[in-house]
């Protein structure tokens, strides 16, 4: 069974998205990067991100990641902010009682996007 299936697929993403994004918005270290963004579009983006991190279907390329975050890198997005997001991702899954072994795998997938997101 794939990681995505073990986590519970689309239903797991739906359960996680509100919890995860609330943590992100409440975090003063990173909330400014999300200000002024339309919430409905943002909801879809967060779902897309979580689906990818959960090992689900996606066709994001490194180039998409670079393009999508370039304006944030220009505003100072760096490793500390990336770490904060990964931290919230882990905490969200813990809250949903996902086993640690799976959380490690999700974090590892998220980690693969670091250089593209940060434009390195």
């Amino acid at each position, binding site marked *: 069974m794939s990681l995505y299936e073990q986590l519970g697929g689309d239903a797991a993403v*739906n359960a996680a998205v*509100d919890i995860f*994004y609330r943590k992100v918005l409440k975090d003063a270290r990173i909330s400014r990067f999300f200000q002024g963004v339309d*919430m409905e579009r943002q*909801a879809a*983006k967060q*779902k897309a991100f979580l689906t990818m991190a959960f090992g*689900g279907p*996606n066709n994001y390329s490194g180039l998409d990641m670079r393009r999508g975050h370039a304006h944030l890198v220009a505003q100072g997005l760096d490793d500390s902010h990336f770490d904060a997001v990964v931290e919230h991702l882990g905490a969200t899954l813990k809250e949903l009682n996902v086993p640690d072994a799976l959380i490690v795998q999700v974090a590892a997938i998220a980690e693969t996007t670091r250089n593209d997101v940060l434009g390195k």
Partner: protein
Amino acid sequence: MAIIELEGKSYPCEENETVLDCLTRHGVQVPSSCRAGVCQSCMMRAEQGEIPKAAQVGLKPTRVTQGYFLACSCKPQDDLRIRFPDAEGLRMGARVVGKELLSHDIVAVRLVPDKPMDYRAGQFIRLFRDGGLSRCYSLASVPVLDEWLELHVRHVPGGQVSGWVHGDLSPGDSVQIADSSGHCFYVPDQQDRAMLLVGTGSGLAPLYGIVRDALHQGHWGPVWLYHGSHGSKGLYRVDELHELERQFANFHYVPCVSHEKPSNGMRQGMVLDVVAGDHESLDGWQAFLCGHPDMVTLGKTQLFLSGVSLSEIYADPFVAS
């Protein structure tokens, strides 16, 4: 083989091909990103034809009922006529049958379209002035309750359309409108759910429609409507809304004034602050926000952080001009 019709042209779709792949193959530009039915960038709308269920997974119920779908996950079995989601609706004529001053700077305009228009309370239509100038206005009317379309138009200083509406436009006049759109309306999928509606100024219009629509469709969960304005002269339909409170025990109407001492039954403060004071947690609620763009933007974040799910926040920012 299904034929896809878009903007008057036909595109044959191969066996097992998605709408997105088919259009792209024919050189039609369609915005897309994840191509996996998640990011919703490639959302389109069907005007005719059967949409496979898989193409509507994850869309809000208000989108599903209007035939929206994701082009990247849509493998059509039958012919489809589709359009881009923000394509303008059909234009039609309408007659002005009423005009009523609601507050010092807002009038209600009642229109009867030349042919029956399918719409839902809370959606908006485009109103044209001669010469192609037009603005969007939300519908305060409810199809089953009102024989006309009702718009609430605020007089914007120097506004070319609102100035004309407040000035020259009179009952008996013929005008042009374009078909309804927007996804801010009531869907009776969970009638015990708590609903919160927050509006400022003429942003009350869609909420006035949605509230009456929901209550008359038998919604029995609590329904809270907050209407904010600088002063009491900006509040309107106050008597009607209090009357609705008497009629429906689950309906609560809270008029708020931010820059004036409140009188009879009003509350003082910015409308979002009053909401925050009344409801500590909004977990499981559905929320509608309409009015000043700053209030709508702030409100979305505030309500989300108070527990409203991202997928349960509906807003159509009121077009100010």
